[in-house]
């Protein structure tokens, strides 16, 4: 795909996403897009470490959860403004990323060992969040007061009770903003020395070291950026649902969601996480609707269908959706250019 095609594609995509209120008024589909973008943001966070850096984390809930907990606790316990706490939430997650990265990379953990240690850290945080009741409120979770004064909607970063536009689109734009930010960061990274070196480390750490790349420092940079982006999804989650508990924050669910999207969409690509997330949600929604429509009340059947479709996609698209898209694009181009040439 040429540079111009790509730029055009992105402009079109972002333009469409930004103009969503013009053609979608349905709360259901706004929410659908919101969830898709939310998972895409987490996926982009994972992608920076896993896709570009080749370090597969199974515990990205660590960053989502830490971001969410700090965001919730600072408001709950100290009454700080959410606009202030969010910086601490992101910084806190970056700190956790630093600590986990330092230990893992210093001791040279790669491949499945890295995957397992992130899993172990997420579980350790899960246990701590549940047990250190005086800090985290334990299993009862942290619940933030619901703002019901539309005048305070922006100040309280809550849009359940706000003017009609914010009520419908406030959180949509929040998560779209985060998504654009995450993509911009990824895009800039891809085009920077840091990005080139990160990919080099992924491809061959020894060769990268020989070429003067401090692999440890590069991987640290990658895990910190990854943590920051994933934590921003946690901030959004808390502001939208006003509740977090150990299971939501550190359970395996979010870790899995974060890695699904980029792997299906296309590892190490800017667009991959969005495509993957969209795919997951569309397949999830269609199988839910199809089962609901044709079979009726049979819990689990839709998820069986979802799982099977996932396996099929994995089997037939080894390069993810981005790979599929590129192949299709090339073919289209070839067809168009073919007769003229």
């Amino acid at each position, binding site marked *: 795909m040429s540079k111009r095609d790509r730029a055009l594609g992105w402009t079109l995509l972002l333009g469409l996403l930004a103009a969503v209120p013009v053609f979608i008024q349905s709360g259901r589909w706004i929410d659908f897009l919101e969830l898709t973008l939310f998972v895409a943001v987490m996926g982009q966070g994972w992608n920076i470490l896993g896709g570009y850096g080749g370090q597969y984390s199974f515990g990205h809930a660590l960053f989502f959860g830490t971001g969410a907990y700090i965001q919730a606790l600072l408001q709950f316990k100290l009454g700080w403004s959410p606009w202030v706490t969010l910086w601490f939430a992101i910084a806190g997650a970056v700190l956790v990323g630093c600590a986990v990265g330092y230990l893992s990379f210093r001791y040279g*953990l790669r491949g499945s*060992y890295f995957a397992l240690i992130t899993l172990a850290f997420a579980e350790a945080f899960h246990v701590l969040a549940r047990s250190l009741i005086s800090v985290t409120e334990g299993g009862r979770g942290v619940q933030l007061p619901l703002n019901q004064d539309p005048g305070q909607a922006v100040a309280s970063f809550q849009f359940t009770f706000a003017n009609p536009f914010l009520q419908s689109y406030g959180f949509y734009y929040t998560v779209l903003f985060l998504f654009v930010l995450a993509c911009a960061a990824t895009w800039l990274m891809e085009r920077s020395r840091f990005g080139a070196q990160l990919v080099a480390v992924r491809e061959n750490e020894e060769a990268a070291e020989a070429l003067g790349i401090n692999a440890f420092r590069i991987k640290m940079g990658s895990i910190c950026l990854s943590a920051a982006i994933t934590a921003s999804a946690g901030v959004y989650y808390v502001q939208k649902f006003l509740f977090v508990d150990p299971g939501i924050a550190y359970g395996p669910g979010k870790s899995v969601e974060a890695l699904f999207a980029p*792997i299906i969409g296309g590892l190490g690509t800017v667009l991959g996480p969005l495509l993957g997330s969209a795919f997951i949600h569309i397949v999830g929604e269609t199988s839910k609707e199809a089962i609901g429509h044709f079979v009726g009340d049979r819990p689990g059947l839709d998820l069986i269908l979802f799982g099977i479709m996932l396996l099929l996609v994995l089997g037939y698209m080894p390069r993810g959706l981005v790979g599929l898209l590129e192949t299709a694009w090339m073919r289209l181009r070839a067809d168009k250019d073919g007769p003229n040439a």
Partner: protein
Amino acid sequence: MELLGIEIPVFSWQTVLGSAVSGVFLGAIYALVALGLTLIYGVLHIINFAHGSLLMLAMYMVYFLWQHLGMDPYLAMLVVAPGGFVFGYLLQRGVIGRISHGKDEIILLATLGISIVIENAALFLFSADEKSVQVPYDLDGIDLGVTYVVYPQIAALGGCLMITAALWLFMARTDTGRAIRAVAKERQGARLVGINVEHIFAISFGIGTACVAAAASLLAPTYAVHPQFGYLFVLIAFTVVVLGGMGSFTGALLGGLIIGVTEQLGRLYLGESLGLITISAIFILILLFRPTGLFGQRLSQ
């Protein structure tokens, strides 16, 4: 007693010993679940997320054999273990091997996808109700003084030892066992000397599944099964595998026992909730300082 500001309770020696003994029996259960996983991990180098779902599925099979045919759960092992082997073999050969194209990230998603399918198939077919096998000897046992040990616990420990021994003999004495070890060590080399690597992968996955099925029949008298049952043991099983060394059966056995005892003592002193941190702590420390585990050989990646 206080340590670093944390109140450490004091218990009688009977309680501490009882806790440690109960840890041994709990550890046997961990080891049982981990035995199959360590083989799959050691040979295929994959993190099999479907392991818990396979355990759950086997538990259901044991339950149905008991419910409909009145088959004793221990006797059911003779049916579910071979059944598990066939299922595992086909799963690896027909699904995982076929769709993965040898890519790690796809294998990972494939096992996740399979666990989604199996879990929800269980929910769909068997409903969300907990099902438990009731055996007449459930409460009979031996009074060790410090704690009471019932026959199902003893059977789990004994079964664990026997399965470990059987696996060890199989790997050491049979041609298939040797071929599995060859593949685990040097995939390309094994291919060059004419070993059908895909077949060996599937055999290993099959044996791993058979192990977890055998574990299911030993767990059935103690635990009720439901579609989410697998989650109870998945993380622990990984910890045991890493602690013991990937691919090592003796490692899994000892790792299971060590973790069982550590966890019980940790829970005794730190409380049932915070005490679980001991498992994560062992996991992290082993990964950092001895990633090959207690008995593992040096494995690349």
